[in-house]
């Protein structure tokens, strides 16, 4: 049976969210942007009025101001966007129980067999768009097709507030003229490699010999070939959580630092944050990696293996060890990041050993402590309880 898959993509999501609670922004060029006092001051999301001036996501603030002097800037409020996102997802799940959230602002819906309830795809998609516009008050575009890939490609074709159908028979006409770089799943690196093979458009990719792609890209080559031909058998699977490969966080420091104590403090804050989220998902990592970006934008990453953990303390200990080994006091640091990966197949269960050392007891204690902190924060907010070393700095955190 032919499937019907929608991709619902929220347009200019952050700034649209802001507009719902601040009508002043409507109809005027506006954007959500990081704090200009920090150097992380970049455009996170511009509305369509601002985009007319050429303002784009990730653009530095002063450049955006130059292009559009009247632009209204709003600081980000991620908690608010999360809430709005949940509202949208709830609304969507009333149309189909098979829903896969792809990011904060987009999701796939498997609408196969829903015609009897909501009419043909074009009709139901109009209904969804209108409802999102009315209740959460947001704009979206919807791509309609028979698989996830084509629906995603379709949703990008008409923005904002567009509904695009892209069925398999439309592929040669609508998809093939596009550059390969526009393909979902093809990043800059892959696009460059493809260009190197003389492949510029998706059509050229679709006609390229599959074996050669396989040779060059391995399994991914076959995947690329199939996608270019509009073939994507992957299912719309609710909750892609198990596919989580790493949990990480990095921050651009408000000023370059040379002091390792300062760096360690920042690292603690980041480790604390990824530890919390790893515990929430029950993911224990076996690899800790740190990222150091120097003021000259030269970036290094260093990693080490540890025993599977999601404890902030253990992540931090491994992180500082790496930091100390690689600290160069002559090179000011601009950005610090830490991540854990190499998740245990199963973290929800631990075989207990007679030799639960080093510090088996201790790590149980630490686990209890950190889980208690998690619960307190859940109830009273992140700032309700913090390690003492973080008390000195309460400046706003602008992490990405």
């Amino acid at each position, binding site marked *: 049976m032919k499937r019907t898959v929608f991709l619902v993509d929220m347009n200019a999501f952050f700034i649209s969210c802001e507009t719902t609670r601040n009508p002043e922004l409507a109809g005027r060029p506006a954007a959500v942007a990081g704090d200009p006092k920090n150097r992380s001051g970049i455009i996170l999301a511009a509305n369509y009025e601002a985009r007319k001036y050429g303002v784009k996501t990730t653009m530095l603030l002063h450049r955006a101001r130059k292009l559009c002097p009247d632009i209204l800037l709003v600081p980000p409020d991620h908690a608010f966007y999360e809430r709005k996102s949940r509202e949208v997802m709830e609304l969507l799940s009333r149309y189909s129980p098979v829903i896969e959230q792809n990011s904060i602002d987009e999701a796939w819906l498997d609408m196969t067999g829903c015609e009897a309830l909501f009419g043909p795809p074009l009709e139901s998609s109009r209904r969804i768009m209108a409802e999102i516009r009315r209740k959460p008050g947001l704009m979206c575009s919807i791509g309609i097709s028979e698989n996830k890939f084509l629906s995603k490609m379709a949703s990008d074709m008409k923005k904002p507030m567009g509904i695009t159908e892209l069925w398999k028979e439309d592929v040669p006409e609508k998809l093939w003229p596009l550059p390969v770089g526009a393909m979902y799943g093809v990043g800059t690196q892959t696009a460059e490699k493809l260009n190197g093979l003389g492949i510029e458009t998706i059509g050229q990719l679709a006609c390229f010999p599959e074996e050669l792609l396989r040779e060059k890209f391995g399994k991914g080559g076959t995947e690329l070939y199939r996608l270019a031909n509009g073939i994507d058998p992957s299912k719309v699977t609710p909750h892609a959580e198990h596919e989580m490969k790493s949990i990480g966080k990095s921050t651009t420091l408000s000023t370059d630092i040379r002091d390792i104590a300062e760096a360690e403090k920042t690292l603690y804050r980041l480790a604390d944050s990824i530890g919390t989220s790893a515990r929430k998902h*029950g993911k224990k990592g076996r690899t800790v990696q740190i990222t150091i970006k120097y003021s000259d934008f030269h970036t290094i990453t260093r990693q080490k293996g540890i025993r599977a953990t999601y404890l902030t303390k253990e992540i931090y200990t491994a992180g500082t060890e790496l930091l100390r080994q690689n600290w160069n006091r002559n090179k000011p640091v601009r950005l610090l990041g830490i991540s854990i990966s190499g998740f245990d*197949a*199963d973290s*929800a*269960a*631990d*075989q*207990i*050993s*007679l*030799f639960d050392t080093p510090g088996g007891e201790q790590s149980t204690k630490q686990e209890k402590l950190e889980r208690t902190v998690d619960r307190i924060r859940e109830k009273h907010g992140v700032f309700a309880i913090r390690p003492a070393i973080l008390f000195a700095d309460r400046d706003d955190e602008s992490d990405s």
Partner: protein
Amino acid sequence: MKFTCSQKKFLESILTVQSAVSTRSNIPALEGILIETENDVLKLVGSNLNLSIESHTSATIQKEGSIVVPARLLTEIVRKLPDAEFEFTVLANNNVKITCLNSIVTLQCFSADEYPALPDIAESQPIEINKTLLIDMIRQTTFAVAVDEARPILTGALLEIDGKDVAMVCLDGYRLALRRGVMDTPHDSVRVIIPGKSLGEIAKILPEDDRKVSITISERHVLFDLGYTRIISRVLEGEYINYSQIIPEDYKTRVKVDTRILTSSMERASLIAREGKNNLIRLNIQDQKMLITSNSEVGQVYEEVPILLEGEELEIAFNARYFMEMLKVIDDPEICLDFTTNVSPCVVRPINDHHYTHLLLPVRIYS
């Protein structure tokens, strides 16, 4: 060297010693079987330095001597010889000729001088142990030896003898298996740690009869003398863990259960559990019954096992494989499971006597 022997008897001996032969060694002769005449019998030896097996078989010896024959080839050739007498002759340059009915095979072999000398086990008073008891002890414990070399001592089994009492213990950190027995003849108190692999080979070779095995322990080796076959194993040096300290005496929850019913429920639950990533089974112990559940991507199992509960109710989880491996070696119709908390060891014993004790550590589950 020259002898004649029956193909059947010779093959039997070869197969006995072959399990000790090195598959790859930097002493090429160790990849062979040493064949030696010893008065009017033939002695075959296979060894990998950790474990050596000697087998004796009767033959008609025409000329004394010794030679080392490549093990793999010899086994294959003798296996395929017709069931008849064959003649074995050592020619010049360590060539061996095997003649059987209408077949003649010549083989390039090694001089016996290249074969390392076997360890000398100092004469001391041997331990006399019943063969069936020894087989049971090995079968009921060695499944629990450590596989990884993180703690080399745990890849062995501890054999403890004190008067008439004998005990064998294996533990790998996640479980412990202890088997006790009583010997007919007392012996001085002695402790030795024998590699689990050696014990596995010994159990395979031991014929099941009522005869006794005599065990001689020296500083570095242990000798199992079965009469026609002698097995010499290196022992592991070091202190074994004080296992009796690990086994808890008290319990808060005691479950009495029919072994057969528990095993079949557990087997069904394992089928589903092993499809999952963690091979986990959960026990929910209530009055009169124990619920066993497992689930993975492929499905789930729910089992109710009738029990007698003494003490508190409890929810606990285990690795299904560890639990099954333990149940498989239990012969008694009824067993008793003792628990304290869901993160402390579970002790399993037969209801009526205490000749074995298993200890199993649970899996910590987070809700």
